[in-house]
């Protein structure tokens, strides 16, 4: 349960649409079904009526991910996401007043233990052991009040489906679906996890989160990607892994998590989206009744750090027992930039399906890759991010061959206009892709809520179609020339430490 969102996936989500839409899928038709309200405390609620079946999905967007983390607390946003499943003062406890005291004792004991164990010179090992034991004893003492996973149990028992959450580089999202007669229960549960969160079993859950990191470490692509991102960003937190560095996962505290929560989980930072068999006239007052209790707090200061312009090519080579992988990224502006649609068009042209340029060049013709694509919006879109090429080679072929072939395709973009057919295809597909994303409650909640949060207006989801419609061949060439330059490039490749397999290509049948 609960994932750190894979970065290339969030890129794919961002391919946005174009060309005039059919009547039933345009802004006007959604205007009739969508109601947006900002509550007095600053929380935004969006309701989209879609009474196809007696169910609804929701998506709580919190405008903070790992972007506000710094060394020492990396992974904390994701850690809090896990804690939001641990219950409240009423859910998950046999006796909250006593449990509260027991939890405070855990934190006291942890702080003492952590101080001692992290001393550089005069660490007293015996004292460390004693303090560690005291901390563990405090956890054991608090455990007796815990009703395990009661929050999830209530959701499931009442028919909840797809209970989960995710954290990425710029947001935390909570979501599941319910039968539509559970609207009030939903409002109670979802608001209470932010009104009265209890950080019970924090240090055990920290172990769980560290296990989640290890799952990533088992994946050769993720091993390379983490190093690649760390090289690509020298200042902006996009370079930090969402799941956190191991030492931070072994150090950050319940206090750190509470601080992060208090600062960023404020109503002005939240967009709650409901889609399905719900009426705005019933849902909005329900959200007001429950979420309206969240205390008003100032919206946190926006992130200060901006990644400075890259002035040098950066190359990461991972020597790894796995088969080779190739990544190459170029910095580009955020989703709010006027050229964002041009990058989306580039992504479609380079990566979408068997007509894409990289598929045809690397997979079909040169036969050197099993997969090749280029994606906009890595690892996120809110801040200036990267356009990233990614490929895996076929047996017997090397990342060097892949790199040369990718550079050939980049040079083609820079020197020649794309064809009329290609441009038309990009625009047609953008329009159809948007339509295909409108037929599912949960998917629609992500689209509408995400757009509302990023742009302050869900209509941007549809307006992006117009922006892609306006992309010209000259735009593509201009952006390719300004973005894909050597000093703006970071390369990540792995070289297999196993003996290269002999080529198995046999063209004869």
């Amino acid at each position, binding site marked *: 349960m609960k994932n750190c969102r894979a970065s290339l996936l969030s890129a794919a989500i961002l391919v946005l649409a174009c060309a005039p839409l059919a009547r039933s899928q345009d802004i006007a038709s959604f205007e009739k079904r969508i109601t947006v309200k900002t509550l007095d405390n600053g929380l935004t609620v969006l309701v989209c009526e879609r009474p196809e079946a007696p169910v609804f999905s929701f998506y709580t967007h919190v405008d903070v991910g790992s972007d506000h983390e710094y060394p020492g607390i990396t992974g904390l946003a994701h850690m809090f996401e896990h804690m939001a499943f641990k219950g409240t003062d009423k859910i998950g406890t046999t006796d909250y007043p006593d449990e509260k005291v027991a939890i405070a004792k855990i934190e006291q004991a942890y702080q003492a233990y952590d101080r001692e164990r992290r001393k550089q010179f005069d660490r007293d090992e015996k004292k460390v052991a004693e303090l560690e034991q005291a901390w563990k004893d405090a956890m054991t003492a608090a455990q007796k009040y815990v009703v395990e996973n009661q929050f999830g149990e209530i959701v499931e028992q009442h028919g909840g489906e797809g209970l989960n959450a995710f954290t990425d580089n710029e947001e935390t999202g909570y979501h599941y*679906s319910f039968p539509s007669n559970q609207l009030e229960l939903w409002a109670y549960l979802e608001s209470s996890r932010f009104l009265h969160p209890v950080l019970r079993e924090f240090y055990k859950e920290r172990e769980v989160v560290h296990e989640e990191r290890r799952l990533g470490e088992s994946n050769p692509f993720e091993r390379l990607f983490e190093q690649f991102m760390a090289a690509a960003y020298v200042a902006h937190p996009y370079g930090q892994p969402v799941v956190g560095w191991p030492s931070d996962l072994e150090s950050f505290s319940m*206090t750190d998590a509470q601080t992060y929560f208090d600062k960023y989980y404020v109503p002005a930072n939240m967009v709650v989206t409901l889609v399905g068999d719900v009426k705005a006239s019933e849902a909005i007052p329900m959200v007001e009744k429950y979420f309206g209790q969240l205390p008003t707090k100032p919206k946190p200061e926006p992130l200060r750090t901006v990644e400075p312009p890259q002035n040098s090519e950066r190359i990461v080579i991972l020597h790894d027992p796995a088969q080779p992988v190739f990544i190459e990224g170029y910095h580009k502006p955020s989703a709010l930039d006027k050229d964002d649609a041009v990058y989306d068009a580039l992504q479609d042209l380079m990566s979408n399906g068997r007509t894409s340029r990289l598929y045809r060049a690397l997979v079909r013709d040169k036969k050197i890759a099993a997969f090749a694509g280029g994606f906009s919006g890595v690892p996120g879109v809110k801040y200036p991010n990267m356009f990233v090429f990614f490929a895996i080679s076929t047996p017997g072929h090397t990342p060097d061959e892949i790199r040369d072939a990718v550079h050939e395709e980049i040079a083609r973009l820079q020197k020649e206009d794309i064809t009329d057919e290609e441009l038309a295809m990009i625009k047609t597909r953008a329009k159809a892709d948007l339509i295909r994303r409108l037929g599912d409650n949960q998917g629609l909640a992500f689209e509408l809520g995400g757009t509302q949060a990023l742009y302050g207006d869900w209509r941007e989801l549809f307006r992006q179609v117009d922006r892609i419609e306006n992309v010209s061949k000259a735009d593509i060439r201009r952006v390719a020339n300004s973005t894909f330059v050597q000093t703006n490039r970071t390369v990540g490749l792995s070289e297999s430490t196993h003996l290269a397999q002999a080529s198995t290509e046999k063209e004869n049948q």
Partner: protein
Amino acid sequence: MIRLRQAAAAAIFVLSWMAVAPTSRAQVDDWKKIQTPPLHQFHPWLPKRIELPNGMVIFLIEDHELPLITGTAEIRGGSVDEPAEKIGLVNIYGQAWRTGGTKDKTGDQLDDFLEAHAAKVETEGGLDSTTISWDCLKDNLDDVFKIFVSVMREPEFRADKIALAKRQIDSAISRRNDNPFGIASREAALIVYGADSPYARISEYATVAAVTREDLIAWHDRYVHPNNIILGVVGDFDSTAMETRLRAAFESWPKGPALTKQQFPLHGPKPGIYFVQKEDVTASSVQMLDLGTTRDNPDYYAIEVFNEFFGGSFSSRLFSNVRSKKGLAYAVGGGIRTDYDHPGMLRISMNTKSKTTAAAIDALNEEIDALKTNPGTAQEIVKAKEAILNSFVFRFDSSEKVLRERMTYEFFGYPSDFLEKYRAGIDKVTIQDVARVAEKYVHKDRLAILVIGNAPDFDRPLSSFGPVTTLDVSIPPPPGAKP
């Protein structure tokens, strides 16, 4: 950004609770007090079933929400039916069927046309079946349907695309030991079903190389007949017009020879510890394995309830005890798996850091042992049943789900009201039923335990659990490759 010092933050931490607490007075603060109104009346989509004289079965569902139409034909015969020396045939077939083009058009020409219209026609090979599908905007139906029929009836299997499919599969073979989860699911099936079982066997460079264009053509000629096809269409169309279109396209297609479904004997694993050494991981994958059963087994409903509270939900025993209480895993879960026409696997799996590998096995053993004295409390069973029944609506809350479900029942010869029976079946499950299936299917002494990890880092040697069989997962080199 102001960073609070630890001590100050700790104080705020406690204060914030106190500050928040009083605001709860205005709230219905106990979820038990919340009234649940009855669920809205709902008449789910009903597929229209049409059986052509040549045996083709068609299901139609009109859904006018979006201007899209998709159709999927499922065709009997899949990789379980391919010869042992050509494992990978159906995979190659599933790719080259579409990419290899038709008599008139190359696959690339089809790509150009379809992508320009934001449409898809795709084919795929599976375990029991192959599929061919289309997905288009309704305005493009005429053109796209024409391509669909032409790929279905007149594929050309051009050689360059067969080679491409083989390269893709070879690439996957070369990478199959890179990720421990891939190793885990592959080896689990091999242990449970046996190395020769069609439910477990895997492609090698040699079996892929052995597949010829003639094999693909022969496969197509053998299986793609109307009497082996179930076609489902959903979307923005008029059923009468669609029926006319489909009859015109398929009614004159002569029936082919009947297929006899092969049965494959399955014996279950040889109990013991199986181990795959992998140096480049920080965590181990641990699995406990046995044979599960089929969905037409009367025990199915009790098994579903058992799975829900044992290892299949957010509040299950495995999740709560192994993950939340012990902090041993991120991913943990499992149960007695069922399949339509062959026994699924009983599979309990988790991932844990190398130095708690033995502790993880202990923890799973503890949960299995606990079933002896406590195979499900009354409360666990009530909650599990409620969870299944209350979320039942999500089995048919979209037209696509309804269609898929009906096609699956038709394919495996299950009754069309299987889903309604399911609900009644779950409702009737008693605590005794659950105890009986736990005892019948979960046997500690019959389990195979599979571990993938880096042994030098383990907390205890695996031999402390019994004799260990070390599995050789090295990839046999391609035929003719230098040793």
